[in-house]
Structures are given as C-alpha cells and as structure tokens.
C-alpha cells in the first residue's frame, strides 16, 4: 500500500461514486428489468465489500457470509407488518452483527481451511436452526405483500454500498487497517509487535456482518415469498468469495470490479447462450485464476506500472 497506489485508489473511488450515481439513474433511463439487475449488482458489491473488510484484510477466508444475509432477511421477513421497515432493516444488520460478535470468540481461534469450513458449517447450523424455528412456530413460508418498490430498494442498496465502501476505505488507511493486514501477514509476529490481534479480529468480523444483514433485509423485500432455504443458500457465500478473489481482495476496488465483472459476464452469457452460460462462466473463472491470479485490481495496477515505465 504505497502512496502511489493509494492515490490511484482514491482516484478510482471517485470513479466509483460517479458510477454509483449513474446506477441511481437506471430506473428512469433503462426501465424495470435493468433496475432489478442494478439492484442485484449493488447487493453483490455491498456483500463483497463487507466480506473484504474482514476476510480480505485478515486473510481469514469466510465461506459463511450468507449467514448474516440470511439472518437480516429473516429479521425483516418475520417482523414484516409488525415493525416499520426503516427500523426492521437496520435491526437485521444489528442482529447479524450480534451473531458475529457472539460466535467470533470461538470461531476466530481457527485458521486456514479449518476456518473456511467452520464458517460454512456455522452458516448451515444457523440455517437449519431457523428452519426448525419456523417449523415449530408453524410458518414454514411467509408472504410479503406491499413491499416498497424496486427503485426504493435500489436507492437503499446504493446507500449500503457507499457505506460499506467508505468503511473499508477508512479502515484500509487507518491504524486499525494496518493492524489487520499484518494479521494476514503473520499473526504471531503481529502480536509480538503489539497489534491487539484478537480484539481487531473480533471488531472487523462484527462490523463486516452489519452490511450483509441489512442487504439481506432489503433483498427479502424484493420478493413476495420468503423461504428460509432461499435466503441461507450457500451459493451466496461462494459467489461473494468468488467476486472478492476475482476483483482482488484486500483492496477497496476489488469488490466493485469483481461484482461488475461477474454480474455482467453472466448476464451477457445468460442472455446470449442460455443453454450453456453456466459452463462459460465456469470456464471464465478458471481462466481468470490462471491468468490474473491476484485479481483484476492487481491486474490494473500492473498495467499502470507498465504504462508508467513503458
């Protein structure tokens, strides 16, 4: 993170906000379908950005990010019509953060693949617990009629994206952020030079749960039908990790690049070659890891350097 690049990043961030403002215009210009696409795109950016805040910076790859999304969605769906949405959605975020805080102490003890699978298992555990809860309480599925329009959801989601991005941005350039990055480098050494490793990990983990919680809440409002299995679908976690790595994690630009790339790519294939677009997406993932193993962000940096030097 030398100054040259953080400058490059800053510039990039202005591009991003310009882009976000542009996306806010989608409903009026491109119409209802693209509004939904824009909403999805923003959702993925928000999710991935929040994932980066913890996993990207500390190198603890979480495969359970969906749990926060699901909890948020569940809070909103289960309090629908009994609590005003402007309250319910943030509550979703808070609930997710609380969950993160509660599990953080034990969960953050394990590293590497153990952490990867543990987070996944934890998400499944919560999923099935809530599934049972719903069964016992006799509402295995819920109908959400009269939810706010997609436009409103989009604007809220854009708000989340801005929030998530600023958080990551501030963190990366803060003492806290530098602490997190050396935790990724070498946890023991970090502790030895005075980095409060455990506290930092817990804080980052907890904060990174707020945005997905709220995003889940918003997305629950997008569909009229709420079903636990849908909002806790593990594929969401996988997609987030994929976007983060493709974009280049540990870098505020990554989530945007990753999400835009994957959403647009699959949208493109999806419409032009519906029969085998998933196969093309799969191929692209592989080619990507082989030829740009450090993500698009790093790839761009390389280009920049070569342009400077050449």
């Amino acid at each position: 993170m030398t100054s040259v690049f953080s400058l490059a990043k800053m510039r990039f961030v202005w591009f991003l906000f310009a882009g976000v403002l542009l996306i806010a215009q989608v409903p009026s210009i491109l119409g209802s379908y693209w509004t939904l696409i824009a909403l999805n795109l923003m959702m993925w950016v928000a999710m991935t950005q929040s994932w980066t805040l913890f996993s990207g910076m500390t190198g603890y790859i979480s495969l359970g990010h969906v749990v926060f999304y699901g909890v948020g969605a569940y809070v909103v769906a289960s309090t629908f019509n009994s609590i005003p949405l402007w309250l319910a959605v943030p509550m979703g975020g808070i609930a997710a953060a609380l969950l993160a805080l509660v599990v953080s102490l034990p969960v953050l003890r394990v590293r590497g693949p153990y952490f990867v699978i543990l987070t996944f298992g934890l998400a499944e555990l919560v999923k099935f617990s809530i599934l049972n809860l719903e069964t016992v309480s006799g509402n295995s599925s819920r109908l959400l009629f009269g939810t706010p329009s997609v436009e409103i959801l989009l604007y809220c989601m854009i708000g989340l994206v801005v929030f998530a991005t600023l958080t990551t941005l501030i963190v990366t350039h803060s003492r806290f952020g530098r602490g997190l990055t050396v935790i990724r480098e070498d946890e023991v050494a970090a502790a030895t030079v005075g980095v409060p490793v455990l506290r930092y990990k817990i804080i980052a983990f907890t904060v990174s749960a707020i945005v997905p919680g709220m995003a889940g809440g918003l997305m629950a409002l997008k569909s009229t039908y709420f079903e636990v299995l849908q909002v806790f679908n593990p594929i969401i976690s996988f997609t987030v990790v994929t976007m983060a790595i493709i974009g280049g994690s540990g870098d505020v630009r990554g989530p945007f690049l990753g999400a835009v790339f994957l959403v647009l790519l699959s949208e493109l294939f999806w419409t032009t070659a519906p029969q085998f677009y998933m196969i093309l997406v799969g191929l692209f993932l592989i080619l990507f890891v082989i030829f740009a193993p450090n993500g698009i962000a790093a790839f761009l940096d390389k280009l920049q350097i070569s342009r400077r030097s050449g």
Partner: protein
Amino acid sequence: MKRIVHFIALLLCSLGLIPAQAAEPVRIGYSIAKTGLFAQAAPSQITAYELWANQVNAAGGLDVAGDRRPVELVWFDDESDPAKSAQIYEKLISDEKVDLLLAPWGTPHHLNVAGVVERHGFPMVGNTAASVAVREVQPGNIWFSTSAIPDRIGPELAALAKQSGVKSVAIIANVLPFAQENLQFLVPALEAEGIEIALNESYPPDISDMTGLLSQIKSAGVDGIIALSYPADSFLYMGQAREVGIDVSFEFLLVGPTISAFSQAFGDFADGIVTIGHWSPHQSKWSRAKPFFDAYVAAYEMNPDYLDTALAYMSCEILEQAVATAGLDRDKLRTAIASSTFDTINGKVSFEGVENAVTPTAFLQLQGGDMHLIWPEDIATAGFSPR
C-alpha cells in the same frame, strides 16, 4: 442418447448455424430452473411445454383468433431463485416483448411472478404452484390449474384413509413449506375422521438415512403411513422402508412417486403407493389424456410426471384454447381465461378467482406399474388396493 443429439443441435442453434423458425412466430416466454435446488423438478414441466409447442407447430401453428402462426419458446434460467424468476418475467415482458407467458416451476416462483404479471396486466396460467398462499394472490392476471392445495388435500386424504380402513397412522414430514402446510391441515382432518396418529415426526430436507425413523414407525404398529415427502426423501423412504420391512396396507408419499424414475428404481415394490395427483392416462372420460401420454412417451422415452407434466401441459391447452377465441389481446385473453371452460387432458377446467373450480383434489395409486386415480369415485380409474 437422444439427449446428446439434442444438445449438439442446441449448440448449433445458439451458434446460429441452424436457422430459427420463420414467419412471424408467436413468442411464448417462461423461466425455468435449469440449475440449482429445483433443477431436477423443472424438466417435468419443460418437456410438457416443448411437447406442446412441437405438436402445435406440427399441426400448422397456433390458432390465433383464426390465423395460424408458429410458436417459439423463449426461456431463461432462473437458477431456482424465485426473485430471479420475477426478474426474468420482467425481462420477457418489457425487453423480449413476448406475446404470451407460461408459468415457472414451483410455488415460490409463481408467487413472485404474480406481482410482475399483475403490474403489467399480463395474463398467465399457472400450473405447478400448490399452496394455500395462492389464495392470497389478488385475482386478475394469474390462475392456478392445480387442485392439489393442502387445505383440500388434508380432509380428502383423511377420508381416503378412513375409507381404506386405516385405524392408526404414522406421519413423517419434510420441514419444507409444502409438506408442512399439508401437515397443518392433515392432522385435524385425521382426528376428525377418528384416525389415531401414533407418530408424528418432521425431518430436515437433507436427511440421508431413515432407518431410525422407520424402525420407530414399525414398532408403533400402525396400519397406515403418511410420508409428506419431497422427491429425494421419497426415494430414501422407499428403499429403506423395504429394508426395515415396513408392511402396512396404506402407504402415502407426497411428492415423488409420480416421477418416472421412481418406478424405475423400485419396480413392483412401489406397487400400492398412494400419492397426490389428479390426472391419469387411464381415465377414458378425458379423450385427450391417453394421446398425450403416448405422445410424451414417444418423445422422451419416459413416462410424464403424472402431476407436474400433466399440470404444465394443461396450462398450455388452456392458453391455446383461450388464444384461439381471444387472440393475443391481453384484455380479451384475460376475460377468455377467466370466463370460459376448457377441454384439457384432465377433463373440463374453468376458473373461479385464481383457482381451478372443476378438477377435484384426487389421489393416485401405483398399480402394476401404472398410475391409477383411486379418489374421488367419479374420476377414479381403479379402486384402492391395499399393499
């Protein structure tokens, strides 16, 4: 191996090597779950759509209020995500500008799409949605052809069990919505019929062994078992019930037995299994039933799903007949669907509000490798035969 040929053809098509249909076709759009949770259920519906489209085109095209036009199916993968399904119908209507719509697979998708068609005032005949929730959908642009709705299944099933001489039952239910809804209405109905519920357990969708459950049922010594199951666990149940040596006269599985693979897996042993379904090729009163069955088998080298495929095909027939009279004008079409009576492979069908007002809630039983309607009497093609 037909599939492979099919696949290559598709490849060529999408590469534009094979010219698509000519002459101003009627474009009919829908979303399907090609991937994800429901991917294995969707084909039962798609095959119906494709078969119908081929038949219509072979017959010189779709009768659009007089003039005949070829039909072209436009579909996208919803990845089993109901929200994405809604997104697709948005696209089909506003971007693709399709002329007609067919339904996606499953209750969640129907309910999500309901909002979209309502907003655009685009009439769509639904098929594979089965939930009391459909009643909460505002009537107007969507209709549900199914009669397999939990609050009707409960009492009817209880009555069937009673009539079949069942004194006590064991119930096991998947925790997923459709099964739980049924459970909710089944239990009181059974009690009303004076049938004792000796065991009532729910299980998660990813259960991978039922021996424990089945041993408990066996030791409960009931004479009826009602498994509110989904396809995967229906297979699990069958295989292991047999091993544990379950032997009761009345055995009901919710979703699964109508799938062609089910009888392939269990052959004679599946004989006598009861399940939901209101269509059978053996009902001679329905002149279209048998021809459809034969055409399907000829086309796909397997039996149709007696529930989903039949429903999907019905919805096509309804749409076809409505278009024949009303053309493609949405308002005319809406009134046509809402008001007229249709002749389908499942007999006469007409709608009240969003619901199929004619087709009764019925049950099928596997008998000698065939699916026979055993309830209610007036459409039954065979009597209930104890296992």
